[in-house]
């Protein structure tokens, strides 16, 4: 495999490729790009419980489930064949901050010192994985979309509500990462 494939791709390669997903899905079949809706379709398919929000024909949106299954497969392919094993390089300030929480392993894209099975039983791991995941699912649906639906698709279509949503995503992230996460990581 050529070296440029194995190395991390710069933003000016990856960003445009992600942006091209928007016209690709429109041209393939009038599908508007968005990923968080897949979580809702799973709810509608598995546990609608007569809740009006989940009472719709999810099979009409099955393309979305095929797409996320593809993302999972893409992850398997990339991780096994398209990346080298050099550790991630992060900003020195981040590295010194992380060291204070006992995080110093940069081997994988997901820090194994934070995200692992035994950690689920610790306060830190439970909050980050279970509570964090819950907020992702609850927040994206309440906002009506996630980074793909609002920040990429919505902004591409010049929708101002998507700009509001994107600003709030960022604001929430800044508040969490800088003001709250330092305490959570010390749990």
């Amino acid at each position: 495999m050529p070296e440029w494939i194995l190395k991390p791709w710069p933003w000016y390669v990856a960003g445009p490729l992600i942006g091209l997903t928007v016209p690709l899905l429109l041209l393939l079949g009038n599908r508007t790009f968005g990923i968080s809706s897949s979580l809702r379709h799973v709810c509608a398919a598995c546990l609608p419980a007569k809740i009006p929000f989940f009472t719709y024909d999810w099979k009409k949106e099955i393309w979305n489930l095929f797409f996320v299954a593809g993302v999972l497969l893409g992850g398997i392919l990339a991780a096994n064949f398209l990346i080298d094993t050099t550790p991630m390089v992060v900003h020195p300030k981040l590295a010194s901050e992380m060291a204070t929480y006992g995080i110093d392993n940069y081997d994988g894209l997901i820090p194994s010192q934070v995200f692992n099975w035994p950690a689920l039983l610790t306060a830190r791991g439970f909050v980050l994985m279970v509570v964090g995941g819950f907020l992702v699912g609850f927040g994206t649906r309440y906002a009506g979309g996630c980074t793909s639906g609002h920040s990429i698709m919505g902004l591409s279509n010049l929708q101002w509500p998507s700009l509001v949503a994107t600003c709030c995503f960022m604001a929430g992230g800044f508040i969490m990462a800088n003001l709250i996460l330092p305490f959570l990581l010390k749990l």
Partner: protein
Amino acid sequence: MQEPINTDFEVRSQNAMCVNQSELSSPLSSNIKYLLAGIVFGIVLIKAEVIAWFRIQEMFRLQSFHMYGVIGSAVVVGAISVYLIKRFQLKTIEGESIKIEEKNFSKGQIFGGLLFGFGWAMTGACPGPLFAQIGTGALVVIVTLLSAMAGTWVYGFVREKLPH
């Protein structure tokens, strides 16, 4: 009187950005093309390290331009594409005209947006990267994904009581 039928699209498009606008009914196998599109998208997410918890931390600490470059250039390319599709009234490969739903404002974009922002910084993942992270072999992220599904379900359960 009950509301007439055909409200399915209305329900589906509540709080959703990605809606199937196609009126055509097509066989299940026609969805393979979306699987392929997803594979390419998943590979890009990994190769750009968009799914990396540390990159997300750098973004929210203004320590790296990378994520801003990725999202910014994606929006520029997406916006030019949408403009060209509208300008030349392009059709899908099946010959259907392309429709994109307008998005209405709701307070959910503020409250829900902030909550999702919290979750994004904690997990280092938005919904797409969750799937890709599991693909890389970080199987514990399945728990995070299931929790995100639970969050979506609880939202649907309490939806009527929330400000919108």
